[in-house]
């Protein structure tokens, strides 16, 4: 009988390691193990934990194939012991106990050194060119046809005696793209106020609606036409994606605006909106950082601000030297990225053809270790 039990006894999880979870705010210990050689026969694993004075308590039952568990319920400074049990239908076997281990909070995320270094370099470029722009005053920025067309679109809608429809996308105020969109809205609203053209802004998010109302109101004041500001034209529609698409399509078909601006983050509804706008012959200017929607906008709209062009819009339209300086800084940051990519390509190529193989491997490993 004992021989049979010994024959069917499953192997325990091997090399159980316990350590303080790195780069966290404390309260967590990680347990890692090598799979039991009989992993395919197991029902599950069991992770046990104990404090020095306690008995072992079951804290988790990871499925077969798991070799890691994060215990997120520890008290910093308390020593813990762990063991992992392999459980099969015929019985179980425990690993050797591991510990003691103490959890603690870290003051720096060691996997983010690369982000810190590159962030400092990029910000230095931006700040340098912002400062330089204050002194030099004139900086060359290439022409962005989508932004040059903003005034043309407002003018055309005015000539046709039609309204302007402005959409801020489906993101909330915590998204940079929405803030960038509101910057463009300010410019469009000011022109519309000067020309006395109706501007309609249906919003997906009520916070964005409030911000858009303030933006348009301020634009009317700057244009010297506070009396023409109509709050009811900037309204909340719905926070449902296709409900919003249906609502906006209805507005497009009923109001037949002369110009449609689609500026912000859009999802699957992008083409529904842009094609409806195109069907009524409105001049359409789109801009989005959503790479999946860019091809649709390029196909359906007259002008498209591609990614970064949208973020550059407020600087480009304001022509303020300090704002333009940051765009110049961005360009130099791009040069740094291009150099880094070229170095990466060179090293990967070298590591494949055998020349300086170890050096190339070491560099790639070092760079990707962060």
């Amino acid at each position, binding site marked *: 009988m004992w021989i049979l039990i010994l024959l069917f006894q499953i192997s325990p999880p091997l090399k159980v390691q316990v350590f303080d979870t790195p780069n966290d705010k404390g309260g967590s210990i990680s347990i890692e193990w090598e799979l039991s050689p009989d992993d395919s026969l197991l029902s599950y694993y069991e992770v046990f934990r104990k404090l020095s004075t306690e008995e072992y308590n079951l804290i988790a039952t990871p499925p077969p194939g798991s070799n890691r568990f994060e215990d997120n319920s520890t008290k910093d400074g308390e020593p813990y012991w762990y063991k992992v049990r392999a459980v099969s239908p015929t019985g179980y076997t425990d690993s050797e106990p591991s510990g003691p281990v103490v959890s603690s909070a870290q*003051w720096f995320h060691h996997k983010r050194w690369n982000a810190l270094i590159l962030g400092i370099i990029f910000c230095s470029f*931006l700040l340098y060119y912002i400062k330089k722009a204050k002194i030099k005053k004139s900086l060359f920025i290439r022409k962005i046809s989508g932004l040059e067309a903003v005034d043309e679109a407002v003018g055309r809608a005015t000539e046709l005696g039609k309204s302007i429809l402005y959409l801020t996308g489906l993101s*909330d*105020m915590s998204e*940079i793209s929405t803030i960038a969109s509101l910057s463009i809205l300010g410019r469009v609203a000011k022109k519309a106020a000067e020309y006395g053209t109706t501007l309609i802004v249906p919003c997906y998010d009520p916070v964005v*609606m409030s911000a858009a109302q303030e*933006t348009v109101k301020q634009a009317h004041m700057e244009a010297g036409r506070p009396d023409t500001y109509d709050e009811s034209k900037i*309204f909340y529609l719905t926070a449902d994606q*296709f409900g919003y698409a249906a609502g906006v399509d209805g507005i497009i078909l009923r109001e037949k605006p002369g110009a449609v601006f689609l500026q912000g983050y859009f999802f699957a509804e992008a083409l529904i909106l842009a094609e409806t706008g195109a069907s009524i012959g409105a001049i359409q200017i789109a801009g989005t950082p959503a790479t999946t929607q860019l091809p649709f906008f390029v196909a359906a709209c007259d002008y498209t601000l591609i990614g970064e062009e949208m973020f550059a819009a407020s600087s480009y339209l304001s022509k303020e030297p300090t704002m333009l300086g*940051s765009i110049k800084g961005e360009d130099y940051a791009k040069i740094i990225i291009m150099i880094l990519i070229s170095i990466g390509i060179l090293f990967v190529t070298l590591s494949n053809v055998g020349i300086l193989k170890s050096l190339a491997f070491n560099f790639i490993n070092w760079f990707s270790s962060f």
Partner: protein
Amino acid sequence: MKRAVPLTITFITGFLIIIGFFIPHDPIGGLQSTFLQWYAIIVGFTMVLGLMTLAKVHTRKILRREAGFGYSTVLIGAMITTLSVGFYSGVKYGIFETGTPFMWYYNNIFVPLSATMFSLLAFFITSAAYRAFRARNIDAALLLIAGALVMIGRVPVGDIIWSKFPDVAEWIMNIPQMAAKRGILIGIALGMIATSLRIILGIERTYLR
């Protein structure tokens, strides 16, 4: 003063969130999630404001008999019905319990309406593709050829015509398409950093109107 206070708040908040990205230790590490929770609370209140605005705009349209006021009547009617059914179900059966009148309303009216809107995308893709694929210049011609190759490489008949079509489609997606996409993404990331920095430093103030 009207601008100095929000600019100071923006600077401190932005700076703390950046620092929090690198320092996991409390209280800095958890600040971003705390701020997002505050934001969610504010959104809850503004949702009421949004609904009131929507109701106000459409009620006025109905009262003044403006053009298209019939649609406004449908909207106000749907809004009242949804709210009534929601309150009734929530009080009697509990929120989001299955088999309640609200869930019936949601599954049989709201979901099909959303699906109908989504399905329109198929027709719009066709019309947009027709315009985009007209070979008016070299760029459009290249787009047409690449698009046709990807489409034919991704359907079973493409493999039957020529076994290399799927490989060609994969190559287009993995090499030229991915290179262009990554280029755009790098530009977007830098644009976001620059815009964030302008906002934190108070250079970009358009959001403070």
